[in-house]
């Protein structure tokens, strides 16, 4: 029944229902008063990368071994790593400098995927605005390092899966080491045994 003006009236009914509804049903009002009410982000949400370290001391417990895979794979090339060298100049398995320029980073999380040592993860902190355009937007190693406990805080399931994987790798390595050690021990035992026998054959 297209009585002229019916469409307009239906439109008015919809806006009236929304107007009154916003006073009655709370779920219609979608705006959050930001500084007072913080949004509850879903667990998977990501903002910028950070480095994970085990135990207490950040430097010692650092998982990153400066293999620079993430530096190569990062699409906008915003990671900068320099490998650490000890006094004698021999390269150590630790980065001396690990910078991420978060003004360039597009939080695409590819570095997390390609990192074989589960050392870089995505943070959920989004209040990073600063007055200084250059200095504070390049996070150096000290700002990036966060404890594994913090990581469990923000991504519980992902953190526990990562720990499980690390646990499994360590156990596999130990088993392999044990097997190797056991094989090496058997080899030395045979050598020793061979060393004991040959004197008779040469007589």
């Amino acid at each position, binding site marked *: 029944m297209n009585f002229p003006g019916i469409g307009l009236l239906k439109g008015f009914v919809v806006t009236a229902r929304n107007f009154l509804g916003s006073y009655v049903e709370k779920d219609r009002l979608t705006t959050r008063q930001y500084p007072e009410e913080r949004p509850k982000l879903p667990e998977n*949400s*990501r903002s910028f990368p950070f480095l994970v370290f085990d135990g207490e001391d950040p430097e010692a417990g650092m998982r990153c071994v400066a293999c620079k895979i993430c530096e190569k794979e990062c*699409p906008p090339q915003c990671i900068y790593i320099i490998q650490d060298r000890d006094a004698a100049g021999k390269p150590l398995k630790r980065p001396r400098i690990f910078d991420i320029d978060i003004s360039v980073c597009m939080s695409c999380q590819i570095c997390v995927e390609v990192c074989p040592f589960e050392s870089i993860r995505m943070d959920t902190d989004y209040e990073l605005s600063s007055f200084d355009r250059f200095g504070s937007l390049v996070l150096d190693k000290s700002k990036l390092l966060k404890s594994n406990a913090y990581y469990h805080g923000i991504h519980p399931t992902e953190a526990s899966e990562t720990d499980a994987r690390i646990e499994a790798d360590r156990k596999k390595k130990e088993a392999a080491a044990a097997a190797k050690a056991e094989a090496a021990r058997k080899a030395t035992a045979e050598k020793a045994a061979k060393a004991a026998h040959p004197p008779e054959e040469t007589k």
Partner: protein
Amino acid sequence: MNVTLDGETVVKLQPVFGYLHRNHEKIAEGNSWLAAVPYTDRLDYICPLTNNWAYTLAVETLAGLEVPERAEYIRIITAELTRLQNHVAFMGFILADMGAWGSALMYAFREREKILDLFEALTGARMMCNYMRFGGCRCDLPSGWLESAGQLVEGFPAFLDEMEALLTGNEILLARLQGVAPLTPERAINGGLSGPILRAAGVDYDIRKVDNYGLYSRFKFRVPRGRVGDCYDRFMIRVLEARESVEILKQALVGIPDGPVVNPKAKQRGFRPPAGEAYGRIEGPKGELGFYLISDGSDRPYRFRVRPPSLINLTLLEELCLGTKIADVMVILGSIDIVLGEVDR
């Protein structure tokens, strides 16, 4: 765009674009195959997941990777959710162009936020999802995601009815949209249009039915077609398509099997597809989104070309706008539904 007027009517119209050109294709040719995926999010930033799917589909046809069933289901669910939020956002934008002070826009965005929350829970970001990988998806659905998606899809027809009540019968909207810039099927085909605009003109061409990519053949859904092809048909086609997407989502959310989310044999880092070329295309919410890739066996694509639906649909803007009023130019541009990220790449 430069519009030459004679009083109120448009005499000449020349769209000027290129301001959002970010050299997307050259960057992709400089980076590895995997590094190009996050850039596809930025193509049509209203529907990131369909862009990802188009790129990964092209790479999979290039490398001949097959995708596990669960991943296909997740891809269809996320793509149809993207189509829903794109069409809903379209309804809001076209009303805002006509000066409805944003009430329809706010209702549309209230629903779109719920869909974006689902994306954030799944992929980690609301719009820059970077979720699809070669041979499947990056991570599996978090617990409870399917239930909340089911609730959303359950409540969606009610929202669409509310929007239709506000818009479809509205006499002013009818006066502003009907009979404006009609498009004949031949002209649409010659213009190379694709997507809802083509179907509004009466051409029955939906790549989901034509190519049957993904597992679309498994779902029962209908493809609406208009008769007159004017702004009102273009508007109504998107409303009807949103309803069809809800049907697909209902079937997909029920039928999703368990299993791996990504093809275990597919290598993501240092991925070197065999030399050759491939053209993968999907039915994006705005039209046929295609990726034409040439690989020379190295870990970088030799040639990376995007076929953007918005740019090609935009070429017909001048012809549609000649002879109409200024107020109509806004509505016609709105009814074509372009995103400049995709037009300029």
